């Protein structure tokens, strides 16, 4: 029993940390990106990451139902990760289609002079008095990795909560609790980022990732302890929904 409780706690902490890492990897431009005044996707960190994570959660729930009992944790988590990754990929790709064909803008970074992946110069393509625009290749790859990390984290929390080998919550309760833990971590990470970020190559990422992960660790431990208490007392066993 204690091993199971510890395993659930550890999985929730890992899931929470991966969620926080994911939000830091997202190329988020917020409202300025909608006016092509900043590089990244034109929405907020929490909105984007939650959208991606729940897409992954949907696929994870379908894949988890492949097994009558005891779903394979790694395969379900990976299915969620790939689902989030695809959501991010299509969103960024269509976003770039609108920037390029709808507004005639070349995607370029505003934070680095050279794209770390393609090694191509960015500065001369940037509109003066903006912080870059569109989703350049480094940000695209960062977003894909972020989607993978966030989807894996969210689906990992879900599968340990729903599995009859671990927490054995009902499907709906496990889904809502996983979403709740994910959103708590995403909001903390969004506060840590404080505005826009371009991805792993952004100097902000290096400067703030430690603080973000530390805060996420605290939040995830708290969430994990609450889940463990719910498991011990049987409050959510079998589900309240």
């Amino acid at each position: 029993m204690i091993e199971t409780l510890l395993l659930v706690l550890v999985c929730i902490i890992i899931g929470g940390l991966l969620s926080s890492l994911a939000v830091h990897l997202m190329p988020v431009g917020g409202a300025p990106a909608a006016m092509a005044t900043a590089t990244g996707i034109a929405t907020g960190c929490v909105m984007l990451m939650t959208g991606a994570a729940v897409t992954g959660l949907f696929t994870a729930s379908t894949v988890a139902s492949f097994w009558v009992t005891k779903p394979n944790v790694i395969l379900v988590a990976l299915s969620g990760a790939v689902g989030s990754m695809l959501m991010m990929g299509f969103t960024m790709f269509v976003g770039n289609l609108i920037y390029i064909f709808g507004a005639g803008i070349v995607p370029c970074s505003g934070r680095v002079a050279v794209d770390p992946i393609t090694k191509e110069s960015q500065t001369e393509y940037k509109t003066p008095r903006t912080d870059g625009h569109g989703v350049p290749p480094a940000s695209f790859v960062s977003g894909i990795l972020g989607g993978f990390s966030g989807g894996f984290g969210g689906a990992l929390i879900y599968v340990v909560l729903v599995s009859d080998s671990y927490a054995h919550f009902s499907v709906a309760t496990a889904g809502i609790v996983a979403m709740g833990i994910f959103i708590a971590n995403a909001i903390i990470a969004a506060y840590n980022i404080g505005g826009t970020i371009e991805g792993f190559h952004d100097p902000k990422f290096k400067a703030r990732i430690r603080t973000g992960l530390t805060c996420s660790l605290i939040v995830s431990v708290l969430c994990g302890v609450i889940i463990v208490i719910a498991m011990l007392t049987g409050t959510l066993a079998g589900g309240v929904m």
Partner: protein
Amino acid sequence: MLFAWMLILAFLAFIACMFEDLESDIGSQSNPNSQIQLAPEMGYIHRYFNKAISGEGLSYALSCTISGTIAMLILLQLESVGPKAAILAIPVGAAVGSLVHMVRSSVCHVGREAAHKRFEQPIYLDVLYGHLLPIATHNFLAVICITAIAYIQSNLGILSGVAGASNPFPLPLLCLIWGLTVGAIGSSTGDIHYGTERAFQDKPFGEGRRVVYHGQICRYADCGVRTSKDVAAFCAKYGGPATGLAFGLIVLFENWRTVIGMTLGGLAGPGWNPSLAAAWGIGIGIVIAVVLVILARTLEKWARNKYGPFVGE
């Protein structure tokens, strides 16, 4: 049969996200709302509808969950009628969700515009009345499609005749999931066409909107003064359909790779291997992601070569 339902889901997703984006354009919700909010402060008195109930994801999650909950209640009440009850349950649910959305829109617009009194921005009653119906109707179409998607996915096993194809989440939770996603995508993609192009149509084409332009929105239409309804007519030509395409492709490929995985894993037969089915789904998904990265790079390279470096001051 499973593939046929999958295509219906993708089509519904396309319609849902397109109308979600156009509805957010009509109401100036989400990110470009910052410009509508800033305009009176910069001396730009306007006739745009101004609502930012919340982020689009949360706003649509609420509308869709209300719709899904009402639909499920009706379905439970009419259980004896069978699947035909969905013909009544889904539109009624979506109508209630849209009505609630319309109420929130009207309160939000009036509240925001009243706060602009200090900048001499009036509350135009014709703008308020004239936009509520388009907001409600566009919202209705988005919500009805999302509720239909959720209904099909939660009953896919029965509808397609393939055991185990249904999603285990209940209808309202699926509505919440797809409501969040449709809002997040509409906010991330479609807003660009409105915020970058339509809201600043009198500024030079082909450049990012400089910070000095912020708040200086385009207030005149082809004929007369522009309202948010003119924005929808413009964005329906590119931004809206492109946004619909994003969500449609996500739903299509997410379902497609799962179904292909299920088929290769021995679909509901004696040789059913869940690990193999999941592994195939993951593998196909990774291949699609790699193709997307290559496509994105090709597109960016094409844009760099075609448009060239920034020219001007």
